[in-house]
């Protein structure tokens, strides 16, 4: 009886999953293009190890393509390797390389246009202009891919994972390096970016434009040209990410430009020139983050309002907060500042006098950047002390009136 069920089930499985076509140098079908031609919806194509140079492969059927350990699809620097336009497609374990370059079109190794339910899993994409390029697609899953760009020809490289006008995408466990922007979102809604590592990209590790209602969680953005940029978007949730070592004159952990109603929670900002740079942003709750060893932990431009900073740890930053105006429409409370030297007489764990996180010197630098030369000089520390006693330049109402005495456990 047991065997009977096994047989019946395996038979059912066979029917529902279609046939398997094997492509390989030693097989009757040697070309992937031919296999796709012969296949019917729901079939699986197993591509055996080998080098396949077939120009642009176009896939419009609902197929599953599975590669072996050394299955390589090569674009010979001339073609887009795999173009997918259809529903229910899975591409797994294939190495793509050498996509073409074009000034007009965004050539990519894997391009998805007008798709629904496509999964790209455990693929390797190397030396491509754009690695994965997705437009007008719903329910794309991009998981566990390893993407490495061309590190030499700087401006001739496109984005690692590029999404345009799509929704409900899931981008997780990918490793992206050496592209223009690691992950790029334009007009993408209701999507998740989880557990990715994006590093050594020319411009941004992650670049968001006009993309509302997206979450990015547990990612690491390290050593990118300018960090991460989140621009012109609403309702973005950023949690548990690591922003590390984004050094340079215009590099930021995160650049927030025209962002509203968003959450930044439990992130770590380590060794960035500026941890968070905000311009024209409103109603953002920034809580429980750790700012460690940055040049500036936060730069809030005067164009920001109604943002709340609470329960963050600020340690080892050269400047805690920088701003360019005296108007302050943002709130700070219950943060831990390692530079706070107040006291706590009633022992409730909260300092009795307020902390002013903007030092006079950071105001001067904002207006005249070359004065940074005098940093850590005797005169500057003298001026800072004088400013603390008799404030004149620093915004008086930018303060944390309930600073924590002890570092918060995050």
């Amino acid at each position, binding site marked *: 009886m047991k065997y009977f069920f096994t047989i019946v089930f395996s038979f059912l499985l066979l029917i529902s999953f279609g046939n398997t076509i094997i492509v390989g140098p030693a097989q009757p079908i040697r070309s992937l293009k031919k296999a796709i031609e012969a296949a019917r919806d729901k079939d699986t194509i197993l591509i055996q190890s080998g080098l396949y140079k077939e120009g642009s492969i176009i896939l419009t059927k609902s197929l599953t393509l599975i590669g072996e350990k050394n299955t390589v699809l090569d674009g010979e620097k001339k073609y887009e390797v795999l173009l997918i336009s259809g529903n229910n497609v899975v591409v797994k374990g294939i190495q793509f390389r050498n996509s073409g370059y074009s*000034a*007009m079109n*965004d050539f990519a190794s894997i391009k998805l246009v007008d798709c629904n339910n496509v999964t790209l899993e455990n693929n390797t994409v190397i030396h491509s202009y754009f690695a994965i390029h997705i437009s007008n697609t719903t329910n794309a899953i991009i998981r566990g891919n390893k993407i490495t760009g061309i590190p030499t020809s*700087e*401006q001739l490289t496109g984005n690692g994972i590029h999404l345009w006008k799509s929704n409900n995408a899931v981008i997780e466990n990918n490793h992206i390096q050496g592209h*223009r922007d690691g992950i790029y979102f334009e007009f993408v809604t209701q999507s998740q970016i989880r557990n990715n590592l994006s590093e050594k990209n*020319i*411009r*941004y590790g992650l670049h968001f434009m006009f993309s509302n209602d997206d979450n990015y969680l547990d990612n690491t953005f390290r050593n990118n*040209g*300018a960090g991460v*940029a989140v*621009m012109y978007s609403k309702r973005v949730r950023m949690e548990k990410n690591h922003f590390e070592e984004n050094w*340079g*004159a*215009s590099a930021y952990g995160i*650049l927030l*430009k025209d962002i509203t109603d968003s959450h930044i929670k439990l992130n770590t900002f380590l060794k960035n020139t500026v941890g968070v*740079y905000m*311009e024209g942003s409103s109603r953002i709750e920034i809580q429980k983050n750790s700012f460690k060893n940055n040049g500036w932990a936060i730069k809030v431009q005067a164009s920001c309002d109604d943002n709340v900073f609470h329960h963050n740890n600020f340690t080892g930053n050269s400047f805690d907060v920088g701003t360019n105006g005296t108007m302050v429409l943002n709130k700070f409370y219950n943060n831990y500042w390692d530079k706070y030297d107040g006291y706590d007489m009633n022992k409730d764990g909260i300092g009795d006098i307020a902390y002013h996180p903007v030092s006079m010197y950071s105001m001067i630098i904002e207006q005249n950047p070359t004065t940074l030369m005098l940093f850590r000089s005797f005169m500057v520390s003298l001026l800072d002390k004088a400013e603390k006693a008799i404030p004149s330049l620093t915004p008086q109402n930018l303060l944390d009136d309930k600073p924590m005495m002890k570092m918060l456990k995050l």
Partner: protein
Amino acid sequence: MKPNYYLLVTIIGLALSSCSAQPEPFKYGKDICHTCKMGIVDPKFGCQLITSKGKNFKFDDLVCLSRFIKSGSVQEKDIKQEVVINFEKENNFLDVNKIFFVVGPEVKSPMGSHAAAFANKEAAEKFNTGKTGTILTWKELLLKLD
């Protein structure tokens, strides 16, 4: 006392060089756009505004230049030159008032102006054949952009 001619020449040279208000080639990946703060990386777009005092503002897209002009940060009489990169030739700066632009969905510029610059009308028309763009002058384009 015999004057030190080398020193003199050096000083004059330095003094003259510092006031040349010319467009500067972009340092891709290093320069940032004055308006949108994005890194400038695309060699087909990008424009600059040079003031009569010689200050050079860089932008990654024409819409950012347009926003900057319309924000009133620089008065019109102080603008010496506005230049844009030729879509067909890297680091070839063109005066915006003397050239033509193709604006259409096929042009993918960094900040969504969808405008590409061409040295003359023929080049613009040639590029636009088979595409759905419109050919505009700078004045017309400024009215369309934010």
